[in-house]
């Protein structure tokens, strides 16, 4: 009757609800290959989305209806789908064509100087996902019942986003990885998620308990399991209240050491409902989101206005913006190389920027201009050799000189590097950087030779294994010797279990997803650095 399945926790939390299996887990659509039928697929998805909206408007209050009427007006306008139809005529699949056309439209809103226009991007996302759901045949997900436990083999990020999680629920995947995009989304939205359950999705039906702290799924739970769940849920509710309260307070260890907490941001929209007081700044702005549109790379103005917006949100707090980190598991069509036998060891991060100097210069100019509006720090990813840093620095200085000569205000932001390639970690003292930020996800996978996208070796990619802690301590000491700041911005930085070890290794600044701040501050408060230091097993 009661069946237990064990997987890996991808996002902590507890949930009780009915399992809702999604058959085709990937959510990808099989393209017909014929332009006319792809165009027809897009047309019928558009008209289905319009019917959805009309039905919604009938059920809505006046205010909500006005918002939806705006979406109707845009959807009814043939201009919206014109670029998608052009791409289809040129051979694109309908869903890809639509996605890329809308990304471009959304970028136009998001880079506006006007708050109001920026806010309307949310409507465009809504339209995009609604039509996409009809195209990929996942429109039934609008019918995912409130609080359901969604079960699938794996889930595309767009399908995750298409589901209404406002009333809770959980995600259980029979395959999947804890470092996948959907796992990151679940963590940042606070949706409990378990991956790698290793069963057939068909076995997952009925009522179930999700204990995503332990990575356990219990189908048809018996009375004992239910009692335990209620006890756990009560404890979790208390913990959540504590974490919410802790988030607004400074992070201080039991022995009185203040720890700086900064945020990892992958999309400026994450900041919209966030009080800057929960953090000491932004430790990592991933800029890849700007580069994912079909109509070309973002120009200097688009980048500048986006960076400026983030910097203004932070007031005077430091904002560390990472230059484009494409390649590896983050390809950008037309920019990153194709056909590399091992993209994680290929042309990615700063290597790609130096190979595409025009793209890099544009970004450096936008960053130097945004630096006029606050405390901007520029961070270079995947640095391996000191020469790469020297080249990037001279490019930055040249762009600032050119801006200044043209009468455009620009400031020399401090220039630092990510420590994520073992070569840079081991020889950290050789890098003349203005700060270090340890990218523990990549550093771990390179140190352990265990790919972050390969579930079967996930256990080996432990960021707190002795080799990693030894390396962290070495990098921290190298930074101290050079009198520069050092922080850590991988997933480990927000992991309550890893935090005592990271602090023990000497780190005093941690960067993490906004949703993790409260728990991280609680974990920090429980650490007594005097005893951690004493038990530190590694020579300094």
């Amino acid at each position, binding site marked *: 009757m009661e069946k237990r399945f064990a997987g890996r926790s991808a996002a902590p939390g507890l949930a009780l609800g009915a399992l809702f299996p999604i058959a085709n887990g990937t959510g990808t659509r099989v393209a017909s290959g014929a332009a006319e039928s792809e165009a027809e697929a897009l047309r019928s998805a558009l008209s289905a989305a319009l019917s959805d909206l009309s039905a919604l408007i009938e059920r809505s209050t006046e205010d909500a209806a006005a918002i939806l009427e705006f979406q109707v*007006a845009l959807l009814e*306008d043939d201009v919206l789908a014109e670029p998608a139809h052009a791409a289809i005529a040129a051979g694109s699949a309908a869903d890809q064509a639509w996605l890329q056309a809308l990304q471009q439209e959304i970028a136009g809103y998001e880079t506006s100087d*006007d708050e109001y226009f920026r806010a309307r991007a949310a409507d465009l996302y809504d339209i995009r996902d609604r039509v996409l759901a009809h195209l990929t045949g996942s429109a039934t997900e609008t019918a995912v019942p409130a609080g359901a436990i969604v079960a699938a083999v794996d889930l595309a990020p767009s399908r995750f986003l298409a589901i209404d999680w406002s009333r809770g629920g959980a995600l259980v995947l029979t395959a999947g990885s804890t470092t996948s995009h959907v796992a990151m989304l679940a963590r940042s939205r606070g949706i409990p998620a378990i991956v790698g359950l290793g069963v057939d999705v068909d076995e997952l039906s009925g009522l179930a308990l999700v204990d995503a702290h332990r990575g356990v799924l219990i189908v048809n739970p018996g009375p004992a399991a239910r009692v335990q769940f209620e006890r756990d849920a009560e404890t979790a509710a208390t913990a959540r209240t504590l974490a919410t309260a802790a988030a607004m307070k400074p992070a201080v260890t039991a022995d009185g050491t203040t720890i700086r907490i900064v945020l990892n941001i992958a999309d400026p929209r994450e900041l919209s409902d966030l009080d800057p007081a929960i953090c000491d700044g932004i430790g990592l702005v991933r800029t890849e989101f700007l580069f994912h549109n079909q109509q070309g790379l973002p120009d200097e103005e688009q980048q500048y206005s986006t960076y400026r917006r983030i910097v203004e949100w932070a007031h005077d707090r430091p904002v560390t913006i990472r230059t484009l980190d494409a390649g590896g598991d983050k390809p950008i069509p037309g920019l990153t190389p194709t056909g590399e036998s091992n993209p994680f060891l290929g042309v990615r991060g700063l290597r790609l920027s130096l190979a595409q100097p025009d793209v890099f210069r544009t970004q450096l100019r936008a960053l130097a201009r945004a630096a006029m509006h606050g405390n901007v720090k520029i961070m270079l990813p995947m640095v391996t050799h000191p020469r790469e840093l020297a080249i990037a620095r001279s490019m930055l200085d040249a762009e600032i000189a050119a801006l200044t000569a043209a009468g455009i205000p620009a400031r020399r932001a401090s220039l630092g590097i990510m420590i994520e390639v073992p070569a840079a970690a081991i020889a950290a003292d050789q890098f003349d950087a203005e700060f270090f930020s340890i990218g523990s996800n990549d550093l771990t996978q390179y140190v352990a030779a265990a790919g972050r996208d390969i579930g079967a070796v996930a256990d080996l990619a432990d960021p707190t294994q002795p080799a990693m802690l030894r390396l962290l301590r070495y990098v921290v000491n190298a930074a101290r010797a050079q009198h520069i700041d050092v922080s850590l911005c991988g997933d480990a930085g927000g992991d309550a279990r890893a935090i005592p070890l990271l602090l023990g290794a000497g780190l005093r600044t941690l960067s993490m997803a906004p949703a993790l701040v409260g728990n991280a501050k609680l974990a920090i408060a429980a650490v007594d650095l005097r005893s951690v230091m004493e038990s530190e097993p590694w020579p300094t």
Partner: protein
Amino acid sequence: MHTGSALLTNDVGLHARPSVKLTQLAKRFGAHIEFARATTGPWVDAKSPVKVMRFKATKGETLHFRARGSDAAEALAAIVSLVERGFATEPERTSQLPQG
């Protein structure tokens, strides 16, 4: 060809609701109606909400209109009036228009 201009006075400029109102009104007329920031263009189709939103007009900007077609004069007068009264829903009924 009929031309006219109006100053955007409402606080939020030509954003979502005003854009919908403008395009709905324009669609009531057979005339081809366009607007621009300058009399030299570039001109934007006043019947396309997507294009109107891409235009991103904000408070304090002057919009120049031009229209051609049998009902161009009437269309222009109605649209200039809508912008001048800050997109206020004058007779409530106008928001009940069929959408084209």
